[in-house]
């Protein structure tokens, strides 16, 4: 829809620009029309020239886009556009001269030579103006786009920070853990002390999650491990975990709390629903220049909708804003008694938009 509207605007501008230009020139040329020449021949000539102008500048635009002139610095763009305008200007005079000979006979050579002195720089100038307008509009569009993206990212980051407390370290988990803690204080004080440290570390990590977009995978997995240990105290024999991270993935940057939220989903929608519990497996590896992280849990996907879908959509939106099309998140049943969430991220470096 927006694409269509943009295309429509573009073509309207093209037609407007070239019909104004042709109309303007036609108006003056007709003033100096020698006796006996039909006005319609002038009209047809300039109409065809306008069409040709549209064709040339359209190809010019495609060339600009293909060679990324829009993101070049001004000092590189200006000489390029001057050269291109001159070349297209010369090109434009060819059909003009041709039409002149076609309509007004073979003996207008002298006359053509006279007006060619004006026409050559004239066309080039027109194309240059066309280019200036085009660059100006594109520049505005890019500025707006960047501003929009910046705003979106700010909003999502803020939301992530909020969710760090609301959904990521979710209250259900927190209060159940505190309840287990109350029991452990009597039963196993040493374990209770360790649990307090675990909860603290997790809360701190989650509070800081909104401030840094990414962390090394190693840091994230450490936190996930802390979380799973805490859940292990609650679920006891009902939860078993296994982590298998390839050593060359540990330094890779990943969005903060991303794996954590997937693992929380696995507990909430997988383990907690199973009377005899189950297993959560985490694996990471490099594949075709991408980082793959996979979280698998026992159970089966519930019907679409519900809180899990909202959580996943938030993660996807975050990935899209951080990495564009380079990242993805897929969740599906992996056999009869297993659900797998798989994240694909760009290997090495950080996000495109820091």
């Amino acid at each position: 829809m927006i694409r269509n509207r943009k295309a429509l605007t573009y073509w309207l501008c093209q037609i407007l620009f070239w019909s104004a230009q042709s109309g303007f020139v036609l108006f003056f040329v007709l003033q100096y029309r020698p006796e006996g020449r039909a006005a319609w021949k002038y009209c047809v000539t300039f109409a065809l020239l306008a069409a040709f102008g549209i064709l040339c500048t359209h190809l010019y635009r495609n060339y600009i886009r293909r060679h990324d002139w829009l993101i070049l610095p001004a000092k590189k763009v200006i000489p390029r556009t001057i050269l291109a305008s001159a070349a297209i200007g010369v090109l434009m005079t060819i059909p003009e001269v041709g039409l002149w000979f076609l309509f007004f006979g073979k003996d207008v050579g002298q006359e053509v030579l006279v007006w060619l002195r004006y026409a050559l720089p004239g066309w080039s100038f027109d194309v240059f103006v066309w280019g200036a307008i085009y660059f100006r509009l594109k520049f505005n569009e890019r500025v707006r786009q960047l501003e929009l993206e910046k705003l979106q990212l700010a909003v999502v980051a803020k939301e992530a920070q909020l969710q760090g407390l609301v959904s990521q370290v979710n209250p259900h988990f927190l209060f159940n853990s505190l309840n287990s803690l109350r029991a452990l204080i009597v039963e196993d004080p040493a374990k209770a002390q360790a649990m307090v440290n675990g909860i603290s570390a997790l809360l701190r990590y989650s509070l800081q999650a909104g401030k840094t977009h990414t962390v090394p995978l190693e840091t994230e997995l450490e936190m996930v491990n802390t979380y799973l240990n805490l859940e292990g105290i609650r679920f006891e024999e009902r939860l078993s975990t296994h982590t298998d991270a390839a050593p060359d993935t540990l330094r890779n940057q990943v969005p903060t709390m991303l794996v954590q939220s997937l693992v929380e989903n696995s507990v909430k929608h997988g383990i907690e629903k199973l009377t005899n519990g189950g297993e959560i497996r985490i694996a990471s590896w490099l594949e075709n220049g991408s980082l793959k992280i996979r979280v698998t849990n026992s159970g089966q996907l519930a019907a679409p909708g519900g809180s899990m879908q909202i959580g996943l959509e938030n993660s996807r939106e975050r990935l899209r804003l951080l990495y564009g099309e380079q990242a993805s998140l897929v969740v599906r049943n992996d056999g009869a008694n297993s659900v797998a969430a798989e994240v694909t991220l760009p290997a090495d470096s950080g996000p495109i938009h820091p």
Partner: protein
Amino acid sequence: MKALIIDDERLARNELRRMLKNFPDIEIAGEARNADEAYDQILRLHPDLIFLDIQMPKNDGFQLLERLDHVPLVIFTTAFDNYALKAFEVSALDYLQKPIAPERLAAAIAKVSWRLASPPHPAPDSAHLDASRQIFVRDGERCWFVAVKNIVLMESDGNYTRLHFEGNRPLLLRSLSDLQARLDPAMFFRANRAQIINLNFIESISPWPNEGYLVKLKGGFQIEMSRRQAQKFQAIAKL
């Protein structure tokens, strides 16, 4: 007072058990880890009181209560479950939040002790839905503990039964015939194919064509009774 602790987490059960040591009136008859275990234990042990965690694997606490013919007194416990909290809120039910505060526990126990002491508690007998017993019903977010004797009218609705009491009309997931077999015939009467009425709520009875009756119940219900049912009705109501 015989109590049953229902929670899927061992530490949570232990902690509650420890806290209940301060209440000599309460004898902990057993523990259950999920709804199925709890169902069996309730039928076997007939507890007066259950401590019920809402969130459990497979069937939750509400689903357990819906299965029971006779619901003991219930003290709900929950860590933080939006859905359950909403249900407690709209239904004005008491619940304890985990970790449980000792004074809140004491208040909840005082409240149920008082309820248990006031009406004589019926002897447990799973074959009959004794009129003073309570059942648990849900309708969307709302839920009720309703004493069987307060139900005015039961109406067949598909395979289930719609209950009418105190202006509410939730659906009970049982068939009307199934219910009829368990109700006290001195209080409840099958007026026709689709309706069971509570005799204590009859306002008036008037003749109806073909030697039937038109029975008016409190709350504005009008029930038609065929000749055959009218004859049975005469025998029971001694008209």
